């Protein structure tokens, strides 16, 4: 039983890792006032870039670099549309998502002639599990040792990065000058402008950070969790992350918890398959799939506390009315 729980949590970590990264990305972007439904697109594009480049170069790290570059480029496109040209942020995000889902397959198909898939990666072209120091002898210790070995240790680098991203995000947002200004620009850009800070530059930096984080998440999908890129690989995880971010009220730690919750639901769904729960009976997989979205809607409806978005979110900054 205990082991089953462990393994469920273990897979929760694996599943929620990309969600966490994307959610943090979303927080950076949206706290600066830029709606970011393009998480999905960045995630997908990055996953493709990582797998493709890793396949060619044979190095997972080169792949990761490519993923980050790609994702940042898309973030810059988003910024160009929303910040420089004051375009509608939702429309821009949507466009990027559709563009990504189209381009990845188109380019992949032309590049590898595998109908949009990339070759299967192995060895150094993937981020493989690393067992943390001391796993071997800690394994002896009954309870904690098992947890350490089974749960904490034995994930790939990117998972650890994902969970490190949370405290870092928190620290940047609340403990640094940049964070202070970022939060301010999401609430009242005029105040930031009149304080002598460039709203544009500030927001660009925010979306770029979002790009970097999504890039890592994408690399995780195709070179960590899996060993190749497949079309529509992100499968809506960007949207789930968006939901999680809102669920976490645009704050890092609650955001993390939301991601873990959604990841846990997923992990449970896998293990509950065909298992009839006492009293409830067998839960339809579709119900489990829909749950994160349902929960988020319920939250948005203000039934479990209100999620208040940054004041200036979605509104392009215009000096002259």
């Amino acid at each position, binding site marked *: 039983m205990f082991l089953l729980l462990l393994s469920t949590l273990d897979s929760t970590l694996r599943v929620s890792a990309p969600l966490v990264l994307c959610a943090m990305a979303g927080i950076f972007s949206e706290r600066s006032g830029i709606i970011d439904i393009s998480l999905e697109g960045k995630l997908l594009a990055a996953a493709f870039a990582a797998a493709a480049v890793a396949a060619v170069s044979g190095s997972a790290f080169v792949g990761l670099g490519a993923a980050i570059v790609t994702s940042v480029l898309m973030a810059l496109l988003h910024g160009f*549309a929303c910040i420089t*040209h004051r*375009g509608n942020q939702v429309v821009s995000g*949507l466009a990027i998502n559709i563009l990504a889902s189209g381009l990845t397959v*188109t380019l992949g198909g032309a590049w590898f002639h595998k109908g*949009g898939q990339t070759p299967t990666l192995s060895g150094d072209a993937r981020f493989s599990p690393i067992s943390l120091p001391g796993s071997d002898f800690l394994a002896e210790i009954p309870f904690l040792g098992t947890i350490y070995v089974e749960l904490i240790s034995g994930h790939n680098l990117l998972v650890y990065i994902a969970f490190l991203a949370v405290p870092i995000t928190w620290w940047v947002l609340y403990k640094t000058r940049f964070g202070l200004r970022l939060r301010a620009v999401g609430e009242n850009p005029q105040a930031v402008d009149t304080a002598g800070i460039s709203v544009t530059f500030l927001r660009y930096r925010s979306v770029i950070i979002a790009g970097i984080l999504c890039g890592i998440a994408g690399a995780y999908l195709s070179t960590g969790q899996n060993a190749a890129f497949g079309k529509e690989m992100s499968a809506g995880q960007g949207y789930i992350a968006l*939901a999680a971010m809102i669920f976490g009220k645009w704050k890092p730690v609650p955001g993390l918890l939301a991601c873990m919750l959604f990841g846990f639901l997923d992990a449970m769904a896998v293990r509950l398959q065909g298992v009839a729960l006492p009293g409830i009976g067998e839960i339809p997989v579709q119900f489990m799939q829909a749950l994160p979205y349902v929960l988020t*809607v319920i939250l948005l409806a203000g039934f479990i506390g209100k999620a208040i978005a940054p004041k200036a979110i979605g509104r392009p900054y215009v000096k002259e009315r």
Partner: protein
Amino acid sequence: MSSPSKALPAWIDVGVIPLINILLAFFVSGIVILIIGEDPIEAVKIVVYGAFGNDYNIGYTLHYTTNFIFTGLAVAVAFHASLFNIGGEGQAYIGGLGVGLLCLALDQYVPFWIILPLAIAASGLFGAAWAYVPAYLQAYRGSHIVITTIMFNFIAFSLMNYILVNVLIEPGQMSPESRDFLTSAQMPTMQEAVGWFGIEIEKSPLNLSILLALFSCTFVWLFIWHTRWGYAIRMFGFNENAANYSGINTQRLVVGTMCLSGVLAGFVGINEIMGNHNRVMLDFVAGAGFTGIAVALMGRNHPVGIIIASLLFGTLYQGGAELSFEIPTIQGEMVKAIQGLVILFCGALAYMSRPTIERIFTAIVESNGTAKEQTNG
């Protein structure tokens, strides 16, 4: 979208600029095609022939066009109340479910001319129902409709999936699809329809739903610009305070507008389920809901514009299918990429070219002006 900074004549704002944007989108698409080592010109030829080469292809083009008119109108109507309905996909999907359930329930018992009105009602009703919840939450609980409609798309997929797998699937059938409807629940194809007048054309999924689409366009045009309800919707869209001041019940207005939007999206079900597949199946909307956003943006939320834009996307879809058929290196997804670019340039970057055009325009005007003065002097 960012609002125009300076007044330009209407024909530039609704004519020239969208045209330039669309051309930009195609230009970039062309580059992509070059990158994957194919000849864009050739591709264009194939697309155009593929879309209009013969009555069969035209049939497919118009069939897609019909979907896009529905979803485009749906997005546009909501836009006029400054509501962003990203839920067209889900609403269309559920609308189709409505049609399906009705047809499966009645096709043994009653004739077509009874089923048709009921089916249209069902598709609209189900679509509206799916728009109702996000609308209600927006109006009465202030939850952001963009997010809720996105969520409802996913919920719709799970729901349909469940119903098909556990309820509608035909016993012994492998794929989660319902049984085929009897002819009494099948929308006459254009082939049959023109056949009644003794005209011969190839069989294609094009069916009489396109008439419903054209009717919807007229309806929306009259409704938005020539009725008091449309007046209220536009007022609310431009200025919520003014709407309150005028004594409009804005909450009811939000819900009503979104439901109308949902109805229009739901009609996709008529075209696809009743007109084309004649059975309930997975994913029959195939992105039409999202394309609707591009269509509305390009069509400037006006039925005429929407018809033109829908035709364009119908061409892209059908021509694109042919393209991947003729040139296997060009995946069907290429169309998606183009679609993304169109949304980008016509939506998010709609006013990128404006300042330049403004400058050019004013330059021209001034030069004319000075010219006149000289002649006067």
